[in-house]
């Protein structure tokens, strides 16, 4: 038969401070103060991080709820889009509209230029006859 000699774990006997020498006592007190300070910093950092996360989530929620509200309006034949986005860095509607308006003006200007080409082509035959004759003597007659 095997018997075990079970003994409760020996508790570490802490030396009463009154029994410690004077130098050791002040060192322990300083250690406790450091521990308390460290705990305080950690709490502050946790609070800051929590606040940042809360603000971040709040911004995202607000942007999701309000940031995408887009209104369209009809001004004559021009496409007009305006946005109520709080901070719209995704798509500049006003710039898009301005670019489209400029493009439409260019298209109108092209119409004028093509008309100028047509007019000149109509004048071409008249100019042919003007430059191909000098006087009645028929010195130049290339027609």
């Amino acid at each position: 038969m095997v018997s075990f000699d079970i003994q409760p774990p020996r508790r570490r006997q802490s030396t009463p401070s009154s029994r410690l020498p004077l130098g050791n006592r002040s060192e322990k007190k300083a250690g406790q103060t450091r521990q308390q300070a460290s705990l305080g910093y950690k709490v502050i950092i946790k609070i800051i991080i929590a606040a940042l996360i809360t603000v971040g989530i709040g911004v995202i929620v607000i942007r999701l709820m309000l940031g995408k509200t887009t209104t369209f309006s009809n001004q004559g034949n021009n496409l007009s889009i305006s946005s109520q986005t709080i901070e719209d860095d995704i798509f500049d509607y006003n710039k898009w509209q301005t670019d489209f308006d400029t493009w439409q003006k260019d298209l109108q200007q092209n119409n004028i230029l093509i008309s100028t080409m047509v007019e000149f082509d109509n004048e071409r035959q008249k100019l042919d006859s003007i430059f191909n004759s000098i006087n009645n003597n028929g010195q130049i007659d290339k027609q």
Partner: protein
Amino acid sequence: MVRLTNNKSIFFSSLILLLIAIAVGASTVSLSRWQQSRLNWQRDFTRWQTVATSTDDIVKTEALIKTKISAAELIVSYFQVWSDELLPLSGERGVSTLTKTATSEIEWWQDKLRQLTLLDLTTVDQGDELQQQLADKWPTTRAKAWQVSSGVVLLRFKIMYEQLKGLGDELKRVEPSLTYPVGWQPFSAIDSQWRQILEQIRLSLQLADEQWQAAITSNRLDDAQRLFYTLQQLQQSMISAQKLLSSLQQSQ
């Protein structure tokens, strides 16, 4: 009695002869003067005719010069229009060549315009020489006018195509994040037509580019006309694209 009669007869005969001689002499002088007068008149009339013809020539030449002055002014203003259009395109490929061509034509015609204005019409040779220069230059100018004008329009179309493509791409890019109001067409509704029009414009641009190269090489009017037809087609396609983009809001 008989002697007296003879003397009388001689006297009258002599008198008659004298009268005849005077009459003949007077007639000859008169005839000579008339002849001289007729010659003078003829000379004056011929001179007058020469002056009249010359004046007529001058008037006709003046009228021709005036038509040439207005023609030269038209040519200068035509090239000026295209030269102005080239300014905002500076930096694009081929613009400097077109600008040089336009400037050279403007300078040449402005110089001739000045000469035409100062032309002394009485010196026919000078006028004829100048007009000969204009006649020789005109076919080249006509070809250059085509090159410059169609070149500018083609360049503008190329830039406008890129801008148009960008406008569509931008709407496509943001579409997933856009909230459309009721009745508003989303871009995806026109996307298929949009791509079709853009492709049509791209192919027309490619064709116009080839035709432009052919037209400037051959300097033939029919090549230029063919290019002009393509440019007009391009303009129509651009208008269709504009309408399509604007139609996004028209279903409201």
